[in-house]
């Protein structure tokens, strides 16, 4: 087990290193300059700005400096937000995105799994069609449309909830609903499919044949085995949700990480984009690592192979 964790750690570090390198050179090969996109600067001012951020040095030197700083966990200064480090920007925006993400997951995961189980158990009945309908609708309506409609209905028409911003519990309701609905829908779909697979397995029949009460057949034998694909799916899902969703954050004017992702790339804010990519990548690697361990707990076959 120790050896396995160590091995995974080395692979993770290499992954992040490759990710940083590729993204670095890819970004820098983009046409345009970070200081030209909005206001037209004079050539001298631009040159001064480039020198200030060290962008005038040879690319390889910049790369080595960046990687050196990265080793210390320093992601550098943002090119767009004057005098703010990427670290501090992440530190202020991430908790907001993470809160929204966690609440949405806390709503979506239990409900989604529950609906998936009910749907599969009642296959072909009205309840099943209802769950399938909800989940298909959920995956078919893009979140920005869902968000706008929620705003229109609850904030504009009935004025029950604030339309945007991130201030109180009331402000959290609409973005949470908008985000969790699509999560819930895809969880329901996957759980239903997985349950249908498990329900017909021989070991479920064995459990019934030995007289295990039906509720325990469901919890101990069916759900537990059906969870395996869900766990695989949860890693990337949790990572992407906690990193913030640009659309939801834009519609509801939430100062989370998601907006920085898009704004920094379109604004050619090299350091910010790179920092966010590395942050996201590391988070995803970590999430997948946790998933693998959880996998081992759920499915002993995988545990042993390691």
């Amino acid at each position: 087990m120790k050896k396995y964790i160590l091995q995974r750690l080395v692979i993770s570090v290499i992954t992040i290193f490759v990710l940083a390198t590729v993204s670095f050179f890819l970004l820098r090969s983009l046409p345009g300059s970070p200081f030209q996109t909005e206001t037209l600067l004079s050539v001298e001012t631009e040159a001064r700005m480039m020198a200030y951020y060290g962008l005038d040095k040879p690319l390889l030197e910049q790369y080595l400096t960046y990687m050196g700083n990265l080793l210390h966990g320093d992601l550098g200064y943002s090119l767009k937000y004057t005098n703010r480090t990427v670290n501090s920007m992440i530190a202020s925006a991430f908790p907001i995105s993470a809160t929204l993400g966690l609440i949405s997951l806390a709503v979506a995961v239990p409900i989604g799994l529950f609906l998936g189980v009910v749907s599969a158990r009642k296959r072909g009945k009205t309840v099943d069609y209802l769950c399938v309908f909800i989940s298909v609708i959920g995956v078919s309506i893009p979140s920005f449309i869902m968000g706008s409609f929620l705003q229109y209905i609850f904030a504009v028409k009935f004025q029950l909830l604030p339309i945007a911003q991130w201030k109180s519990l009331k402000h959290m309701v609409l973005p949470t609903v908008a985000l969790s609905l699509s999560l819930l829908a895809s969880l329901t779909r996957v759980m239903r499919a997985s349950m249908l697979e498990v329900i017909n397995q021989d070991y479920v029949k064995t459990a019934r044949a030995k007289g295990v009460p039906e509720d325990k057949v469901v919890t101990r034998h069916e759900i537990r085995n059906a969870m395996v694909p869900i766990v695989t799916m949860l890693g990337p899902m949790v990572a992407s949700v906690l990193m913030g969703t640009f659309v939801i954050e834009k519609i509801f004017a939430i100062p989370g990480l998601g907006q920085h992702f898009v704004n920094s790339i379109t604004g050619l804010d090299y350091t910010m984009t790179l920092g966010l990519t590395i942050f996201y990548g590391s988070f995803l690697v970590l999430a997948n690592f946790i998933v693998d361990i959880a996998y081992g707990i759920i499915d002993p076959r995988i545990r042993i192979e390691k």
Partner: protein
Amino acid sequence: MNKTTNILLPNAFEFVEDPQLDSDSITRPSVTFWKDVWRRLFKNKVAMLGLFIITIITILAICVPLFSEYTYKGQDLVNANALPSSTHIFGTDNLGRDMWVRVWVGARVSLAVGVFGSVIPSLIGIVIGGISGYFGGKLDMLIMRFIDVAMCVPSMIYIILIMLFIGSGPISIIIAFALTGWMGSARSVRGMILQLKEMEYVLASKALGASSASLIFNHLIPNTLGIVVVSMTMGIPSAIFYEAYLSFIGLGVAPPTPSWGQLSNAGIAVFRVYPSQLMIPSALISLTMLSFNLFGDGLRDALDPKLRS
């Protein structure tokens, strides 16, 4: 002992002459796999409804711009922001452009991006995953490591990067999808090939001296085709969604060319005043995605041999 037997012919208890052992003739008509799939798909009303809506939307997308008196960029500022009426079926936007025409021109873009943006990456993924899984060894390891690293980046970041490189427009979106979307399907095709390679019937035909090409075309591809077709169908709504998303953040299709995402984006700016300008394109996005999802679900159920009873 048998009361019924007394009404029998006198030769009832004679052996049948030349007893042909005819029970090999099976009374149930044998159905081939694909025939069976089609039959089940046709029986699935929900999937057929999805197909029907997709067809209608496609026909409208092709015909409406051809036969309309308006064009998608012709402005009529006097009639800006008009509500739906008999002259402008879906009303007009803030520049007085006819929404009915714009929506269906937008449908062309969105559908094209949806279909090609799903099929092309899948095809690339099938080829790479197939090669990786079939030949295995170092090449396989290299490809898989590459995918592992590449999957650690949110695909949105890559797509945006690529879009910045090659500029906006429907073709750019498809290229961006092709470059980023193949990894998932490559991985799953590789997994399937690895599984199939171990199957007895593949081993058997190998033992009988089948060539690589005949193995790939006769066994591996037909057996993975179903899953691939389903995942392509399911990929279409998500490609439509990504196009809408990209247009929504201003990177997709450049104005004045409309796409559903772009129309929704424009609609969001004014939806508190003119809700129809958001509702129409977004309803169409949702309806199309819904139809493709329903059709894909039906296709998957029809292809699942376990349901074949």
